[in-house]
């Protein structure tokens, strides 16, 4: 339904967006993922009409969006900085958009009540934004943009200030809106888990350009480029050259098992990526695997990350195991993985 | 709005009739007269008095506006209205009140006399003019300052304090730069009418010193030389426009 075509936007000598093209489907939950400063907010602002691109087109169901004033676009944007109206109460803030549609008062009141209930702020309806905590403000901003049920909802980091519980509730709520009301979502998030679990498709951005657009599992398991492999989830990367077989030829470690994603000519520069949770820590005495010693064990609640120093490899190799780990720093181990658990891709971004 | 102005300013290139009025014959003599040392001296004197007035107004107006902006909402309005309330009586009456206060046998001298001091010559000098101007235009300083200070995010001041800045440094480095547009507007509002004032120099200054306003008034009313009066006005406006542009420029930078 939303077609973004060759959008470019420069700020002085910074190119915030560099000929970005995307197509977002009706009813889809679409996530934008990318490092801080890569142009995500800028793209949303262009779609919403607050920034003019230097080049490119944006159409919504065939209609040219760029020539439409912001208030005519059937789009809601939730601002990364909330942009709550400081002189209005929470209820007034949320009602604002509905009042513009000249809905009967009773309806407005009811819908505002419902949405405040949803975001857990019923008790705060008559407060001013200055009297709210950070997370409460964010929820007001969220409520304000979802209450309108627009055809397209753009959310800029909608849940970044929320704790896991509230966040999970909100995520469910967003999913419900997508399902029941059929809203199309474009969500900016830096939280990969969130993107993974919510989105139908994810676009990974870097320095103003789209690197890959894919479904979550595909993105995670078959990153098309080292950047995506590295950015989406943790990954252990090994450089080398393609061997023409199910392995990478590494200068330091010989042949490393892995599955090429595309046809790679033998000898071409390539990269092998293996996820921490695919790595097995074997006993020092095991026959296969790269020798190393445990550097650090950190507990992340539910999962522990173990970093293993492997001589010859610049960065420590990261392994993830469920629960609290029993390995001790200093322990000698071997790290290994199966060919089907690692991917080999061409080098370059 | 521009038409009346243009009308008056167009007189600058014409001549005074023998008995007043205007003769529509082109001349540049009016501009030549501008550079008479007499007029330059008057301009210098006016600049001095107006600048001094503005400075004092800023020095006491800023803290006042600052504190008003911090007051609880209820008191804010009260304090603000209290600033302008005296001005809802009458300008000339208030000026006369100062005569009562400052004159030889006036209240201040009587008070000082009781303390065994004085009498001092408080009236009919430049000090009295500055006092009168200050009194007349102080609200014009406070109001725009209040409007900007009120908007300042208190967290910025908190951040500054947290980074180790004293109250004064916070003021100098954060509050002031962020309210510079208000400062400039306030200064302009005080400076301009002070610069062009003629009533106060007459009443409180005893007509003993001349300001640009008196000059213009004299040309328009006493000499009935509208062309030269207009020329003086143009010069005044030119000076002020330079200040205005400087103000707009500084405000944009801030």
């Amino acid at each position: 339904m939303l077609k973004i075509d060759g959008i470019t936007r420069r700020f002085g000598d910074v190119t915030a967006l560099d000929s970005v093209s995307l197509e977002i489907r009706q009813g889809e939950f679409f996530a934008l993922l990318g490092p801080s400063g890569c142009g995500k907010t800028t793209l949303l602002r262009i779609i919403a009409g607050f920034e003019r691109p230097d080049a490119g087109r944006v159409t919504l169901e065939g209609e040219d969006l760029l020539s439409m004033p912001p208030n005519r676009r059937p789009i809601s944007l939730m601002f990364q900085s909330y942009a709550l109206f400081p002189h209005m109460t929470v209820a007034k803030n949320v009602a604002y958009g509905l009042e513009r549609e000249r809905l009967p008062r009773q309806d407005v009141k009811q819908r505002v009540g419902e949405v405040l209930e949803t975001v857990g702020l019923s008790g705060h309806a008559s407060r001013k934004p200055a009297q709210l905590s950070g997370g409460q403000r964010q929820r007001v901003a969220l409520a304000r943009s979802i209450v309108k049920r627009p055809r397209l909802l753009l959310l800029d980091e909608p849940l970044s200030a929320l704790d896991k519980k509230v966040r999970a509730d909100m995520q469910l709520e967003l999913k419900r809106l997508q399902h029941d009301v059929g809203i199309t979502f474009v969500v900016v998030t830096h939280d990969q888990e969130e993107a993974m679990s919510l989105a139908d498709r994810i676009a990974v951005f870097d320095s103003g350009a789209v690197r890959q657009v894919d479904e979550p599992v595909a993105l995670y398991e078959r990153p098309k480029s080292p950047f995506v492999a590295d950015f989406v989830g943790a990954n252990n990367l090994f450089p080398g050259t393609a061997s023409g077989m199910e392995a990478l030829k590494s200068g330091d470690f010989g042949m490393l098992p892995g599955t090429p994603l595309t046809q790679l000519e033998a000898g071409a520069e390539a990269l092998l990526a293996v996820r921490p949770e695919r790595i097995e820590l074997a006993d020092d005495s095991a026959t296969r695997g790269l020798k190393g010693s445990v550097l650090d064990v950190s507990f992340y609640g539910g999962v522990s990350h173990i970093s293993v120093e492997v001589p010859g490899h610049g960065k420590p190799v990261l392994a993830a195991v469920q629960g609290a780990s029993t390995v001790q720093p200093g322990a000698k181990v071997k790290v290994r993985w199966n060919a089907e658990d690692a991917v080999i891709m061409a080098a370059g971004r | 709005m521009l038409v009346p102005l243009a009308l008056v300013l167009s007189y600058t290139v014409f001549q005074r009739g023998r008995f007043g009025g205007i003769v529509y014959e082109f001349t540049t003599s009016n501009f030549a007269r501008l550079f008479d040392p007499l007029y330059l001296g008057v301009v210098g004197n006016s600049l001095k008095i107006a600048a001094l007035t503005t400075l004092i107004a800023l020095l006491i107006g800023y803290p006042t506006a600052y504190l008003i902006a911090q007051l609880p909402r209820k008191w804010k309005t009260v304090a603000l209205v209290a600033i302008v309330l005296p001005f809802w009586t009458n300008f000339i009456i208030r000026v006369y009140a100062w005569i009562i206060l400052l004159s030889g046998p006036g209240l201040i001298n009587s008070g000082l006399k009781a303390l065994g001091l004085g009498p001092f010559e408080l009236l009919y000098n430049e000090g009295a003019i500055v006092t009168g101007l200050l009194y007349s235009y102080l609200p014009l300083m406070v109001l725009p300052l209040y409007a900007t200070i009120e908007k300042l995010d208190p967290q910025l001041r908190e951040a500054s304090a947290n980074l180790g800045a004293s109250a004064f440094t916070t003021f100098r480095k954060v509050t002031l730069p962020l309210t510079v547009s208000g400062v400039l507007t306030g200064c302009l509002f005080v400076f301009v009418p002070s610069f062009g004032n003629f009533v106060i120099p007459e009443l409180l200054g005893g007509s003993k010193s001349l300001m640009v306003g008196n000059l213009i008034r004299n040309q328009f009313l006493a000499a009935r030389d509208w062309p030269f009066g207009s020329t003086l006005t143009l010069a005044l406006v030119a000076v002020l426009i330079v200040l205005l542009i400087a103000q707009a420029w500084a405000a944009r930078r801030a």
Partner: protein
Amino acid sequence: GGESSSSSQGSNAAAADQLKPNADLSQQTLQVTVWDGYTPKELPEKVKAKLKVKDLKIALHETNEVAMAKLTASGDSGIDVAFVSGQYAQALNEQGLLEPIHPELIPNLANLYPEATQLSYDKGNKYSVPYTWGTTGICYRTDLVKAKPTSWNDLLKPPAWAEKKVTMMTTERWLALPALKSLGYSVNTDKDEEIAKVKELLVAQKPHLLTYDDTTFGEKLTSGEAVMVEAWDGWCPTTDPKGNIAFVVPKEGSDLWVDTMVIMKSSKNKEAAHALINYILDPEIHSWAAENINYKVPNKAAMDKVQIPKGSLLGIKPAELLDGESIIDLGQASTKYTTLSQDIQAK
């Protein structure tokens, strides 16, 4: 815009409208501008009752200068009759803004002293009718002066006991007057060297002054802030109950000032305007001015009716007044006086 002043003296009479002596005044509305308190409060009612004009509205001006600005700024100021001083009437006339007086419509002109028809700014009352007249002198506190002033020099070079207790007027022609007279010059001089001499005197005087004051000098005398001031006769409070204030016309002589009534050329109610002036010259009405504003009126019939209170200056006779030199407008040269006044203030 302003009116061109290319017209020369006397050309106005020829251009005068033909006025109808029997015009229906009830169709005419009069707008008068005058100093505050200069005409009786109830004048509008009286005029309406007596002359049957539709309406009479009074506007007030503070000074001659301000009245002039309003009268000359646009073609039609909406004013029918204006009260201004003699030299301003002259200037208005020079600019072609005044209607010539039609004597046949003002039979009461006969009430004027003969002297009042020979005033130098308008001999024969061609475009103005005098309302009040008087002179300028020194007004002083009899109890606070060490010696009675007799000469302008007492004011110009104040003795030690009067240091910073002397005021002068700045309305520019009166600023120069004492110096001009003390130097023996005409009050209407336009000679640069004479004006330069005057300037010297006044600059030397400035440090010894309390202040310049055109309006409240009387009050400064009563309060004792000043002991000696330059004053118009009517504004010198010689009738003060304490009886310690006196007025003197210095021996070097002084001026004769006249406040007049003029009819604007732009007036659409000229018949009513004449009728109004005629009515004001009625002794009953005109004597009000002398009794209430302490200025003499140039109307013999009126002055004869007036009870002159003790200490009042109303007793000065017209002949004495005519010793004074009448101030006239000097045309281009009058700006010299503005410049003079500015020069002195800027010092």
